[in-house]
């Protein structure tokens, strides 16, 4: 509904004021986190903390990257970032591969029990891992997958969202394209590779972004799964750096770690904004 009628005057400026306030509120905690990551712990724990960055940037970030919280409970942030990259990529790729192939089977073939399979998969559409967390833990433990990348990845790719989205997209592929391919002599897998994958490229990319962020930001599952600090993911690892009631939290290091933990997904979202928004909002179509 763009192209509003009132374009200038007070309401125009009020619009900018409203939006800018929204932006500032969203940015406020991020800014203070950044400031805290550039000063000494002394400056942070004696309130009020400074509102402008200090000179400890390199010190704090390198300490977080290399040492983590100085060997208390978690691994170095570098190690954790590596783990998280592996897990998030694994989840995104895994989800896309299994859901792309199963959506292809469901949409482009007729085979017995096809609808039952679809519904079995669809049942899992919105069920988060949190609900079935304990039994899933048992399953993974019985496979001996605790503290492994497989254990971190596989339970999280069992979701129907991607299958459903690909199914929706495949439904919009014109019948005539499939028929033209058949007349050209393309067998199913040939069609799959030569035509379906290329025309789904943007959908695959959009879904990859969303699934990557989903995988990157997992918290509870890695928290339960990884007792070995070297397998920690960065989100849970940072949380574990925070001391309890009586411990002293090394805030500058924690904040440096937090910033590094959120930067990759933020960069992905911002740099691939168009694809990301399309992937996200396509869900409801």
């Amino acid at each position: 509904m763009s192209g509003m009628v009132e374009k200038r005057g007070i309401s125009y400026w009020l619009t900018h004021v409203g939006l800018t306030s929204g932006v500032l509120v969203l940015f406020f905690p991020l800014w203070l986190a950044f400031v805290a990551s550039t000063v000494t712990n002394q400056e942070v724990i004696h309130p009020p903390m400074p509102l402008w960055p200090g000179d400890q940037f390199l010190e704090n970030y390198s300490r977080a990257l290399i040492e983590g919280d100085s060997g208390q409970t978690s691994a170095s942030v570098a190690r954790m970032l590596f783990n998280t990259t592996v897990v998030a990529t694994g989840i995104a790729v895994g989800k896309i591969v299994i859901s792309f192939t199963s959506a292809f089977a469901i949409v482009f073939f007729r085979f017995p029990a096809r609808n039952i399979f679809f519904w079995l998969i669809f049942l899992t559409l919105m069920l988060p891992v949190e609900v079935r967390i304990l039994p899933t833990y048992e399953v993974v433990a019985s496979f001996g997958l605790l503290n492994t990348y497989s254990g971190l990845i596989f339970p999280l790719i069992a979701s129907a969202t991607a299958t459903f989205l690909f199914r929706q997209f495949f439904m919009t592929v014109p019948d005539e394209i499939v028929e033209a391919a058949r007349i050209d002599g393309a067998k199913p897998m040939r069609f799959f590779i030569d035509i379906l994958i290329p025309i789904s490229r943007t959908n695959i990319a959009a879904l990859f972004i969303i699934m990557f962020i989903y995988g990157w930001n997992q918290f509870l599952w890695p928290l339960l799964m990884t007792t070995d600090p070297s397998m920690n993911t960065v989100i849970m690892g940072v949380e574990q750096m925070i001391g309890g009631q009586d411990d002293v939290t090394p805030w500058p290091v924690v904040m440096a770690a937090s910033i590094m933990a959120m930067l990759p997904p933020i960069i992905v979202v911002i740099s691939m904004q168009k694809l990301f928004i399309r992937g996200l909002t396509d869900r409801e179509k």
Partner: protein
Amino acid sequence: MAGLTLRNVHKSFGKVKVIHGIDMEVENGEFIVIVGPSGCGKSTLLRMIAGLENVSDGDVLIDNLKVNDKEPMDRNIAMVFQNYALYPHMSVFNNMAYGLKIAGLPKSEIAERVRQGAMMLELDGLLDRKPRELSGGQRQRVAMGRAIVRQPAVFLFDEPLSNLDAKLRIQMRLEIKSLQQRLGTTSLFVTHDQIEAMTLADRMVVMNEGVAEQIGSPLDVFQKPETIFAAEFIGSPAMNIIKAISDGQSVKLENGTILKSLTQFNGEIWAGLRPEDLIPDKKGKIIMQIKMVEPIGASTILHGTLKNSDTQIVSMVQGLFNPRDRQPEMSFSISPEAIHLFNRDTGKRIDN
């Protein structure tokens, strides 16, 4: 030699029968147009020939070979779709070459065939473009190019012109016709547009509700429609169909007007009068009460009712006719040969 033969071809979807037994022999190099309203089964028939739908009963033969159970690619056909169905991610070259690549032709031959096809269709400069960078008419040509390079025994066209604007449609119609004549490939062309049918066809098949109402040359169908449906469907404006009684010498329309006719038939009939056969004539017996006047340029269409009845009637007169000059009534005459008679019960033509 027959390029294509249909023997008592039936199609049902579950219990619904959509094609009720079609027989046809298509000569090599013939251009056949299947015409009919939407839902008459014409596209289904074409898709059965292509192998995209199963044949429920009967046989389809291409080059005298039964192909009922063959995959589309093994039938030696090529098809042009209404929405062109170009592969959106492939260049024009690859769109045209894809089927040849799958067939395993050597690269040099593929390149040569595509080059020739592209020349024929004036696509030479566009081979590296993607479909989205082409205009509607260019896409249409690529779709045809894809069909040509396969060098098939039969071309199948499924309403290929209906996505084009009016002007381009006429131009492409001519191009398809001249291309087909040059290549001499047997062609089946499905359309709902009777003008396309009339202009393209060597022979046309008028289809209605899964039945071939008439198969014949365009002039045959126009001059001697076999059924009321064919009579009404071909010709614009459509033929007037009026309830009447024939006594073997003359025809009495339902409003009492008596017209001289050439038939010996006795009994209840439908009388068919083409609008352009109604000649303005002060002494004419057909009196029309004019309701609407539509000038369309070279001629004028008059809408109205037969005097003393509610029967709608349309006539077309040559020349411009100023709507302001319209009279409340006009009389017309018609020559006896121009009256078409159809059996009241079966709708079949009664010959003179």
